[in-house]
């Protein structure tokens, strides 16, 4: 089986007639509702410290205070609705590994961007995704990675007069990276 076939097999074409369930995982939902209530409490406290009213009228905390109260009420209402059984919970868990890999790779890229510069960090990022995740050949991966790193860097610099980050390491900066 080719890699594209393998990829296609793990996918599906949406069917217009296919009934879709949009159930929400119960634990995740409850945790989110709790987090929203906590957020509402935090904003309420902050808004009160900012001041709700001044001699001219509403203060900086007035609008956030109203929003925090609304958020708290809505979160409790959502909780009550889910407890009343108006929402069903999903049984299966989605495979989050691919999403986690994408997220971690992006975090590493963002973390290295100022240190290694755009060209080196983006080259490594693209090689990781193209060669190892997408399992493309070396030639295609290298060409696309160089185009997406050095090509985009110089294209932005010369075409759009937009400077992408250069490396903070003197040796790399000296090489124009």
């Amino acid at each position, binding site marked *: 089986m080719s890699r594209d076939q393998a*990829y296609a097999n793990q996918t599906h074409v949406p069917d217009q007639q296919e009934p879709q369930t949009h159930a929400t995982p119960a634990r995740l939902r409850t945790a989110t509702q709790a987090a929203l209530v906590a957020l509402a409490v935090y904003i309420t406290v902050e808004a009160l410290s*900012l001041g709700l009213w001044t001699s001219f009228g509403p203060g900086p905390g007035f609008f956030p205070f109203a*929003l925090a109260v609304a958020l708290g009420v809505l979160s409790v209402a*959502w909780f009550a609705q889910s407890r009343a059984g108006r929402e069903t919970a999903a049984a299966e868990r989605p495979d989050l590994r691919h999403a986690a890999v994408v997220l971690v790779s992006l975090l590493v890229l963002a973390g290295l961007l100022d240190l290694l510069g755009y060209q080196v960090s983006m080259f490594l990022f693209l090689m990781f995704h193209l060669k190892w995740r997408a399992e493309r050949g070396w030639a295609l991966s290298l060409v696309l990675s160089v185009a997406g790193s050095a090509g985009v860097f110089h294209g932005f610099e010369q075409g759009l007069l937009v400077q992408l980050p250069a490396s903070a390491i003197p040796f790399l900066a000296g090489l124009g990276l």
Partner: protein
Amino acid sequence: MDVLSELLSGLATALTPQNLLYAFIGCLLGTLIGVLPGIGPVAGVALLIPLTLNLEPTSAIIMLAAIFYGTQYGGTITSVLLNTPGEAASAITTIDGYAMTKQGRAGAALTIAALGSFVGGTVATIGLVVAARPLGDLGLRIGPPEFFALMVVGICLLVALAGRSMTRALISGVLGLLIAMVGIDPVAGAPRFTFGSERLLDGISFVAVIIGLFGLSEVLAKATTGTSRAMTPGLRALLPTRTDLRRSAPAIARGTGIGFVLGLIPGMTGSVSSLLAYGAERKFSRHRAELGSGAVEGVAGPETANNAHANGALVPLFTLGIPASPTIAVLMGAFLQQGLTPGPTLFTEHADVAWAIIASLFVGNVILLILNVPLVRVWTAILRIPYPVLTALILMFMVVGTYTINFTVFDVFVMIGFGLLGLLLRRLDIPLAPLVLTLVLGPLMERSLRESLELSQGDFTVFLTRPISVVLLVIALVIAASPLLRLRKPAALTDDPEA
């Protein structure tokens, strides 16, 4: 100056080689975004805002507007050729569009879609020209209380039509307003919710939030569920037959009317228009029995409605400063970044810019028509690129697009954070559209609320003592009660990521 001379003056600006080039590039990029799976019009327009930051305001908005309506047509290409809508508004086109492809008539389907889009977009732009002045003058007569009430109506409409649960849609809307609160208070100048960070004094980057919420979360969601891929069929005949054209004409007329009228209503997304246009064909078309098996009306009606909707939705933005959809909200964000405030004052303070942009919509529709028919083969070739490769390139553009807004890696982290939040909200079935709308409207809404209360010296009845404000708030109340009145969006439309 009367409307015609202002429009002609705008046309002269829009037709300068420089602006023509930007409109062309915008149409090209917009169509590409529409074609690419995993990047919808909202994230697409936000992603390309950085490219326009160094341009003068008129050129920047012309390019972004072209990107906006280019996405509408791009989505059609994948619907027709791959049975996979590039964006939600083209979903209904898959039924007859893909059936035509299987009959070897993909070229005819795409050409009819391009023609319908052109007619729908052009007629809607004429509507914008006609409505701009009177609605703009009306807008100038309203004060902060009316403006606040108007924004409440807009938000209520979007919330009422978004998703399956009004509670969750409201939570989304409140979250957007709260995100907009971060930074310096617009009235008193006090820092709010900045956690002592200087980076947050200017607020959270709007573009980073949109790219994260709509673009990255879409990529992450697809990484958990996979995406569809199909073989691209060949294009036997590019031009439609005379019969195709004759049969399409009434469908295009109906689609134009439906799309333009619904485009004026905040909260109505393009998918509502295209679905209703398809419904109209099922009811009124002389060939309704053929719908579902490759009838050209099934492509012409929805695609025309989709583009008429996109251009019609610019009317409330230009005249009242109210974005009617998330994509328009992003466009409004771009206006604000260029120092232009959409709404009635746009025609008094920047009339030349406003009319040049309106005129460019006509030009853009012509460019789209000329561009898309011959380029169908190019778009088809792009669709053959494996999705994992596209993902890597899309991620690269997201990082570049986010970084170049403020030239700080901090925004890239913000984008990643909001990508994660977007994935969570999708998983919890919390619609993203209200969040985007309130994120843009938040500062304006707070300002008008506080100005109203300052004017009335803290008297909250100021909203109930002014006729326009009362009427608008009553409308908002009726909309908010819409679940009870069964004015909810049809279930078939609840998968619209724009909603």
